[in-house]
């Protein structure tokens, strides 16, 4: 798989295998906002629990906007993935992403990585080791986190070079 800038408006991911294509489709689906650990991480405390009154205001007035912002990013990604991989075509697949959607992709990939890590309780040492995929949900989540991290790094480089 490789990523390159097609023109001034578009980025293309070439050579996507069926497995990686499925992981791409999971970018927004794996953000489990209903899971308590995910909710706690994505909507973290602004005072580390030291000011309950202010935190109550934060929950009431700020967090709805944050939720909406997160949702909006995921909707952009969902729109780009609509129809992907498309038809009965054979591997490898290709995905085009408009450059002005890259910020939403970076944000959604971050949501996905944080959500997976919170849900499976990953810590730093879990991320430092290699991935030994044995087929369970935890291994798959770790694979997703690493894959999404590679995409995020690449997209950030393209954003940097575009600015």
């Amino acid at each position, binding site marked *: 798989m490789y990523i390159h800038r097609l023109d001034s408006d578009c980025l293309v991911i070439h050579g996507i295998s069926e497995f990686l294509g499925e992981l791409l489709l999971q970018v927004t689906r794996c953000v489990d906002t209903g899971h308590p650990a995910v909710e706690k991480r*994505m*909507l*973290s*405390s*602004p*005072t*580390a629990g030291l000011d309950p009154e202010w935190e109550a205001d934060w929950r009431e007035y*700020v967090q709805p*906007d*944050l939720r909406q*912002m997160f949702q909006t990013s995921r909707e952009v990604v969902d729109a780009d993935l609509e129809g992907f991989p498309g038809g009965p075509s054979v591997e490898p697949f290709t995905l085009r992403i408009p450059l002005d959607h890259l910020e939403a992709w*970076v*944000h959604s990939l*971050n*949501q996905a*990585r*944080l959500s997976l*890590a919170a849900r499976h309780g*990953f*810590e*730093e040492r879990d*991320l430092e080791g290699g991935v030994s995929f044995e087929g369970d949900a935890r291994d798959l989540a770790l694979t997703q*986190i690493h894959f999404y*991290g590679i995409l*995020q*790094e690449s997209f*950030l*480089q393209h*954003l*940097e070079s575009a600015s």
Partner: protein
Amino acid sequence: MAEILLEPETRIDEATATPWNVVVHNDPINLMTYVTRVFQKVFGYSRERAEKHMLEVHNEGRSVVWSGARETAEVYVQHLHGHLLLATLEKTQ
């Protein structure tokens, strides 16, 4: 000695006038390049300054990324949460 009673508004003004720190805490999931970019975007920091704070977060677990008026600090914390960084507001010592 006569007790000096402050009007509620005065008390609030004094509280908000105290400098506050915006602190970012380490998170092993967020990429270093991502955190650097967020600091550049939210605070308008140069790449060098953003990387300095990012490395401080990474190596020391936290970095005071901005200090000043509480209302502005709250806005910054909100922006940082919008980018999914672990940010808190602390009154300066």
